[in-house]
């Protein structure tokens, strides 16, 4: 018979692999509080991986003991298995090993690969960008297309193109810079990394792509919120919305294959709508309920793995 712990973990893994991410991706409340939604996504990702690998591990090791700590102890002390070890136990153990290695391997690989590309981009840029006179941490790139971006990392680089400077007024530029600074200060690239890796590791799982897109959109909305808080002026929301539309309107200069457009396009539209017609703030009770669920979601597989068998 399968241990109850393994069954519970497997049920949790299935829920977190499909229905839960699908629900959160479709929900309307995340745009009312992107930060809380980002915490929920991190919790879903971590708990999902933990329960998937945990279920296989608990089942595979069940002949050695009915809880993970018990089984690991008897394996380490070279005790023989109490029950007969069947083929499905070996299959589960192998799958657990492969899955753990793949998830961690892909995470490390994307970390190394994006790090290398970022360094290359920084080297290419550093030869041609000029420090900005008005904005101390900002560099100017001579290019007609209105673009702004930052390269995160140990030595972050925040770049505005001359086309962007020409297109926007002072308040709008301040809004753009505040948005990019928010990405850097809150290390949004680290929030995205597990989802980039997760999508690469599990391309057959539609939830992985959906989760990645959801987190990417939320990170942009969060940066918009942080930027708004730091902006002066009469109508910061409209200022930021104008900056987004101006940057989107003149995105020429770089040829873009049409396939990649639908996703980014609708996300940009959602940002502008959200700025022009701000949704109500999430009530404090709902906020705390979401955070509490995120915490419990992480606690559940951890407890199932570490506590003695049910």
């Amino acid at each position, binding site marked *: 018979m399968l241990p109850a712990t393994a069954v519970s973990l497997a049920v949790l893994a299935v829920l977190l692999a499909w229905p839960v991410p699908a629900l959160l991706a479709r929900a309307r409340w995340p745009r009312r509080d992107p930060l809380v939604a980002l915490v929920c996504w991190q919790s879903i990702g971590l708990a999902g991986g933990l329960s998937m690998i945990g279920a296989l591990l608990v089942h595979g090791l069940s002949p050695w003991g009915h809880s993970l700590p018990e089984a690991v102890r008897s394996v380490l002390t070279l005790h023989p298995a109490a029950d007969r070890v069947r083929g499905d136990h070996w299959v589960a153990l192998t799958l657990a090993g492969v899955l753990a290695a793949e998830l961690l391997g892909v995470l490390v690989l994307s970390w190394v*690969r994006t790090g290398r590309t970022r360094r290359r981009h920084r080297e290419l840029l550093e030869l041609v960008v000029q420090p900005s006179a008005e904005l101390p941490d900002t560099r100017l790139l001579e290019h007609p297309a209105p673009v702004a*971006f930052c390269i995160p990392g140990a030595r972050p680089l925040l770049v505005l193109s001359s086309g962007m400077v020409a297109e926007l007024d002072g308040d709008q530029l301040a809004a753009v810079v505040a948005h990019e600074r928010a990405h850097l200060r809150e290390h949004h690239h680290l929030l995205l990394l597990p989802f980039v890796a997760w999508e690469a590791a599990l391309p057959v799982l539609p939830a992985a792509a959906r989760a990645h897109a959801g987190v990417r959109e939320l990170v942009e909305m969060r940066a918009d919120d942080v930027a708004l808080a730091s902006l002066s002026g009469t109508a910061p929301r409209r200022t930021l919305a104008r900056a*987004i539309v101006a940057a989107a309107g003149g995105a020429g200069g770089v040829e873009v294959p049409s396939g990649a*457009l639908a996703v980014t396009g*609708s996300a*940009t539209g959602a940002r502008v709508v959200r700025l*022009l017609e701000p949704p109500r703030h999430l009530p404090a009770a709902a906020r705390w309920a979401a955070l509490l669920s995120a915490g419990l979601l992480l606690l559940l597989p951890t407890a199932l793995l570490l506590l003695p068998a049910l």
Partner: protein
Amino acid sequence: MATLGELERAVMERLWAAEGPVAATTLRGELAERGVALTTVHTVLSRLEHKGFVVHDEGRPRRFRPRATRADHAAELMHEVLGQAGDRQAVLARFVGSVNADEARLLRELLSGADDTPGD
């Protein structure tokens, strides 16, 4: 005292502006107002070579030239940094991703609609 990054930019500017390959001593002469030693010029040049931006010939003394013209460098930059390949999204955070013409028009309509209504 200029930082290495600034010196790299200054040396590349000279190399791009030059008619042909340039020797390190010439570069030091051109950077005289910065008070740069010849060893520093060599350090900067070897860093630039290591990054793949500069190549040297086998003459004595060695003369250096940029691997790509300024225009090619700019083109490569825009292609690599702002290209739309999927992994680019992970590398940098762009203020607004690329948007097609229809989407851009839609966004402008959205904005002008909001401008007609008073208040924020």
